[in-house]
């Protein structure tokens, strides 16, 4: 089984600061990290190969040369090898151009070793679109399965996979063919503390770096800024919510206060 996990380097939005005057990220305040959902995708790949007792995990990323850091981080979690596509031609890509470039890199990877499964995070915490994973699946003509919370069974001989995915009012259990592409939620697993041999391997690891010339049959008009129809109209920091009332006291007291408040505002429930 050959699993490819697509990973992205993102600014750590937990501690990020926005410059209120220019509405841009204060880069000094935001260290670059492996997108947390992608980390869970790598961890899931490790889990799957461990269950099967064999398999190869490759990670693929697109970004500037310093994005090597997220590939090394993936090796720490347990990936076997990594590929980075890095070229000025890719710069400024939106989700459409990104999924095109990544699908080209995936074609290149599968030429040497056919890919059985592609894993992605649900979305990146900087853009929150969740479009790149399905975009890749569409281009490679394989089924996308989003919001995966459990990989219940992988049957290599039958080429099937059983997946639990989150839906609005619960979950659904589905079977898909292999190869397919999954995008995973955080609750799919918990990230394990990486063993020391992985840390040493990662410190030493140098991923394969491909430029656009290393990919085959690439339509350059579909890459980077040129291949990106998305236009950012405006960026702003959402204003802090004002007003409201903060309930104090212990849980019981707070519930009591909340019930009273709701009782006073029966008009809110008039329709029911």
């Amino acid at each position, binding site marked *: 089984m050959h699993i490819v996990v697509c990973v992205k380097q993102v600014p750590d939005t937990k501690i990020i600061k926005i410059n209120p005057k220019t509405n841009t990220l204060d880069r000094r305040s935001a260290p670059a990290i492996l997108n947390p959902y992608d980390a869970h995708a790598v961890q899931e790949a490790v889990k799957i190969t461990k269950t099967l007792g064999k398999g190869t995990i490759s990670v693929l990323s697109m970004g500037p040369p310093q994005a090597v850091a997220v590939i090394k981080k993936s090796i720490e979690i347990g990936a076997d090898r990594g590929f980075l596509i890095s070229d000025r031609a890719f710069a400024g890509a939106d989700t459409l151009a990104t999924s095109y470039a990544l699908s080209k890199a995936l074609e290149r990877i599968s030429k040497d070793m056919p890919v059985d499964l592609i894993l992605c995070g649900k979305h990146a915490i900087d853009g929150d679109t969740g479009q790149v994973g399905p975009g890749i699946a569409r281009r490679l003509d394989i089924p996308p399965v989003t919001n995966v919370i459990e990989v219940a069974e992988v049957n290599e001989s039958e080429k099937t996979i059983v997946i639990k995915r989150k839906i609005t009012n619960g979950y659904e259990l589905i079977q898909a063919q292999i190869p397919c592409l999954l995008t995973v939620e955080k609750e799919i697993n918990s990230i394990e*503390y*990486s*063993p*020391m*041999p992985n*840390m*040493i391997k990662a*410190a*030493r690891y140098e991923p394969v770096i491909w430029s656009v010339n290393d990919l085959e049959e690439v339509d350059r008009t579909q890459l980077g800024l040129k291949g990106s129809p998305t236009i950012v109209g405006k960026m702003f920091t959402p204003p802090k919510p004002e007003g409201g009332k903060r309930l104090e006291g212990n849980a019981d007291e707070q519930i009591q206060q909340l019930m009273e408040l709701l009782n006073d505002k029966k008009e809110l429930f008039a329709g029911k």
Partner: protein
Amino acid sequence: MSEKFDVIVVGAGPAGTSCAYTCAKNGLKVLQIERGEYPGSKNVMGGVLYRKQMEDIIPEFWKEAPLERPVIEQRFWMMDKESAVSFGYKGLEWGKEPYNNFTVLRAPFDQWFAKKGVEQGVLLINETVVLECLTENGKVVGVRTDRPDGEIYADVVVLADGVNSLLAKQLGYHKEFRPDEVALTVMEVINLSKDKINDRFNLEDNQGCTIEIFGDSTKGNLGTAFIYTNKDSVNIGVGTTLSSMIKAKLKPYDLLDYLKTHPMVRPLIEGGESAEYLAHLIPEGGYHSVPKVAGNGVLLAGDAAQLVNAIHREGSNMAMASGTLAAETIIAAKERGDYSETSLNQYREKLYQSFIIKDLEKYKDAAHTFEHYPQYFKEYVPMLNRAANKFFTVDGTPKKDKQKEIMKSFTSERGTIRVLQDMYRAWKAVK
């Protein structure tokens, strides 16, 4: 069986990285383990980097290292409640190559320095805690980390894990500190615009200034305060020995607040925005507190070996120099194929022949003297301020009479004999 290295360096501060860098540069297989998220994330110092010891490791480092400002002025204040007697030196030649020292922020600097080590072939692993040294027949043969499959082996383990070296304690090299052997320093990084810094400290771009403050900055206790200028921030901090804090019932953050609101200090940092707050122990025991630094398969460097000259606030340079000496020792030991205590004791000899131990020896009784006789900070600093006030106030009294009055005030407050005793004692402690 896991992999074996020539050297495992525990810690990625100045001492650890100097050692790892030099070892790797000489072809040794080095593993460096840092507990923080990245080198520098857990490190604290006032913020002065000395050019000489850094340059010995990486020539012309100032051309690429993330430095703040070259220090062109060093000021010293003997501060009282509403006054200060100050002296200092400002030299524009310090603003040019080869420079004297620089202000730095530790997080970017340590990361850069560690990266230089990685470029030499050091394998750097972050976010990993070394729990203990592995020993076999009394010889240190590796370390056990907190990770699964976490045992790693090496010919030599270098402990550069900082002032409170738990590993050195486990090996029995460190005792628990006495409260007078360590200082607790708290500091803040305060963001302030470049223009404001230049105006308030009388600097131009790319010129830095350091101020060391004695006396009321520590409410008369043994210790110092400091203000260092970065590019667009100021480091302000204060530290006293733990024993003084206990005796005077001081809380470190209260002391820092006292300093920041002191009328002599407040105008310098007014309007600044606090960016970081840090606290750190500094080994100040000096010569008498230096532990065993070499054992079977193990060496101690930097703060872990208590190598800090408290009087001259020098620590990072001693850390770097000791790290390099440890590396030289290991390289020679590898040639001999002998990592026994006898072989590694060459490190101890190198330390004692270097400026490090010589400087610590020169001041071996200084801290003790000033701690034991509190009058230096508590009484003489205010006396000096009153004397300066008297001498420089123009009130129609002849200068000669003023001098007499001043001398009389000194001797009448403490008595002639005691003043002479104090002078002699202080001179003896620092001679």
